[in-house]
């Protein structure tokens, strides 16, 4: 057992309101400078939708991540052979137009235009060339556009859904969408690290943050191809790759990452998880049906004396072990089994987890006849014209199977395509909701509640725990990362008086494009 620690994040998608505050906080701190305008280390996508860069989940286009190669795995679009052969021209590299051409507006024209019969306008200009452009794509361009033919219906996660199912999804009465905030997943088997010919990308042993050493990066740009989440970006101005750094200077100093700190919906949880690095290889090369389970099996119980002993022998500090024991992410992922990795089928073993959204799947609209009106539950069911809007929580399994967003769709994102993986999570979320409804509204019988809790392997205490951390958690409950190990962080020893507009942290020379 090779115990290592990893700072991991959980996103509770039911709580995300899609306000993009996290993206703006990140942008303001890290990527508001030349060459990085188009980068969104943190972005929030509307699902169903094509996302950023467009259709990033379609690895037939982008060739990201790992694929099974016999008993082992190989990088899909990079690696030693493909990477070196394609070094002069990388056929699998996304281009600026796959993201968007960064732009601003000529605001000054509004003020300085001479008097005329027409209203002055602020024309959009490219932030690359400075010339006027027609904006064709932008950050969160498909925001809230579920149901649109160009975006939602091109969502790569619709794969495996019949045309009838897809049409049902996008009926006006049934339409639903949710938000997916994304940052670098700080994977255990990072494809970007493996793809970097220079060896500039590495994973920090102490906390698992994946970083790019920009002094070593030589712009071979294979990481951009290899990352299946498209979270490694190429700075076109200074010729270096950049990516989310999990705000490590803030974490080291005891602050939450900017995206988490600014989160309005408080959807994010950050904590330490101990894992067994010996299992990385077997977990990453498991059969598709076992991928999610094997990855979760790698995560170790921080209370297990054996684990603690092995962790100490491996140099994990006491404060890190303590933090792992109080980790909110461990609870969501392992103790309650509510959170799942995003796209485990890319085999990078992502260490950010998502609690799949229940809200859009809960209510349903059905056509009923008028004589049923009298039998309706006045709280859970509303009837207008011939349509029944049903938020009833009594039929636990029924409503989930008839979800507005088909289980198959959710499974393609969070269950490596396996519906049974995602169903248990949604059932548990539903069970907690039924339990709370019984406690607060009281229109559900106690027998029903007990039955539901039993079915989902929950107890009243566990349900209360989940409810508390989901709904009432204070900042310290959501953020539990050991106090700054400044003595262990080489970056902190360097001058960190960085400022907005510079490239990353710890670069002491003037950051300018090479000759």
């Amino acid at each position: 057992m090779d115990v290592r620690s990893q700072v991991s994040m959980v996103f509770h998608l039911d709580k995300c309101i899609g306000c993009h505050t996290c993206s703006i906080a990140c942008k303001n701190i890290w990527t508001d400078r030349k060459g990085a305008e188009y980068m969104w280390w943190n972005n929030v996508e509307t699902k169903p939708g094509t996302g950023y860069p467009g259709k990033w989940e379609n690895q037939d286009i982008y060739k990201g991540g790992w694929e099974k190669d016999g008993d082992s795995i190989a990088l899909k679009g990079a690696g030693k052979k493909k990477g070196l052969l394609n070094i002069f021209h990388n056929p699998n590299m996304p281009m600026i137009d796959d993201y968007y051409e960064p732009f601003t507006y000529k605001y000054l024209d509004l003020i300085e235009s001479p008097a005329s019969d027409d209203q002055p306008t602020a024309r959009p200009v490219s932030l690359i060339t400075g010339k006027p452009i027609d904006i064709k794509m932008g950050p969160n361009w498909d925001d809230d556009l579920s149901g649109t033919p160009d975006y939602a219906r091109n969502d790569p996660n619709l794969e495996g859904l019949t045309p009838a199912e897809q049409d049902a999804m996008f009926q006006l009465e049934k339409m639903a969408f949710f938000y997916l905030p994304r940052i670098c997943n700080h994977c255990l088997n990072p494809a970007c690290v493996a793809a970097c010919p220079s060896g500039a990308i590495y994973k920090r042993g102490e906390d698992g943050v994946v970083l790019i050493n920009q002094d070593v990066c030589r712009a071979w740009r294979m990481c951009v191809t290899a990352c299946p989440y498209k979270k490694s970006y190429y700075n076109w101005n200074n010729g270096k790759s950049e990516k989310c750094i999990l705000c490590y200077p803030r974490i080291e100093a005891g602050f939450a990452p900017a995206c988490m700190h600014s989160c309005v919906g408080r959807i994010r949880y950050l904590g330490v998880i101990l894992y067994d690095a010996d299992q990385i290889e077997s977990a990453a090369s498991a059969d598709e049906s076992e991928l999610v389970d094997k990855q979760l099996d790698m995560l170790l119980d921080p209370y297990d004396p054996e684990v603690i002993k092995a962790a100490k022998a491996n140099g994990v500090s006491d404060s890190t072990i303590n933090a792992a024991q109080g980790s909110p992410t461990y609870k969501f992922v392992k103790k309650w089994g509510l959170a799942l990795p995003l796209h485990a089928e890319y085999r990078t073993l992502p260490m950010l987890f998502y609690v799949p959204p229940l809200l859009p799947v809960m209510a349903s609209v059905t056509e009923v006849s008028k004589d049923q009106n009298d039998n309706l539950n006045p709280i859970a069911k509303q009837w207008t014209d011939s349509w029944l809007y049903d938020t009833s929580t009594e039929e636990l399994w029924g409503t989930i199977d008839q979800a507005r967003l088909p289980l198959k769709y959710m499974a393609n994102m969070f269950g490596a395509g396996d519906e049974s993986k995602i169903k248990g999570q949604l059932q548990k979320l539903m069970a907690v909701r039924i339990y709370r409804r019984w406690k607060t509204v009281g229109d559900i019988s106690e027998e029903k509640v007990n039955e539901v809790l039993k079915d989902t392997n929950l107890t009243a205490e566990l349900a209360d725990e989940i409810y508390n951390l989901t709904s009432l958690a204070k900042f310290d409950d959501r953020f539990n990362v050991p106090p700054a190990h400044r003595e262990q962080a080489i970056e902190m020893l360097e001058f960190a008086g960085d400022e907005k507009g510079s490239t990353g942290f710890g670069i002491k020379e003037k950051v300018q494009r090479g000759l």
Partner: protein
Amino acid sequence: MEPVSAFVNLYNNFFFIALPYIAVIVFLVGTIYRYRSTSFGFSSLSSQFLEGKKLFWGSIPFHIGILVVFLGHLTAFLLPKETLLWNSEPIRLIALEVTGFIFGLSVLFGLVSLFIRRISNARLRVVTSKMDIIVELLLIAVVILGCWIALGYRWGSSWFAADLSPYLWSIVKLSPQIDAVSAMPVVIKLHIILAFIIMLLFPFTRLVHFLVAPLHYIVRPYQKVVWNWDRKAIRDPNTPWSPTPPKNN
């Protein structure tokens, strides 16, 4: 034999004795200094992200061609006897020359495509420095001369190995013998001079990415984990009191 005029002598001494030494010294000192002081600036500065389709028709023929042509020059320089032995058979000589010429044309085609691409695309002009243009034009000039020489002064691989390799070796051995090179036609002389000028400018251009070609990628393991401290020793009760903590970096 007519006495060589003083001017021609001076010219030959400067271009074939002084210039090579200046070029080599600037190349060595410049690249090492630049690498050690600002390795952030060492980058291929790829522009594929802004324009990828035309790049294919420029970058691939240029890079493949220049690798072959460069290796050809290097072989004739390092192994002149073996090169002459190879060329002793006419078929092998012609095969070598034709191969070299084709790859030379490939370099030329690539360079011209790259040049047109760079000046015709508004996005690319933003990431083009003056030095990029100078290097591009120098390379085009040297390659045109090279192709001209290959066609007009046969057979280059043989006389390079026989006459120019000894000259280059005499430079290396610090006892320059420029008789052979002084007698070369002006086209060949120009080719050599331009090559030394490119070498001279090398540390101040994007060409430095050639020196950091990622060959070590072939042998390194795919994953890379970095610990700031030696994790096997950091929790040893003795280490807090030792004057040198078990550091990795």
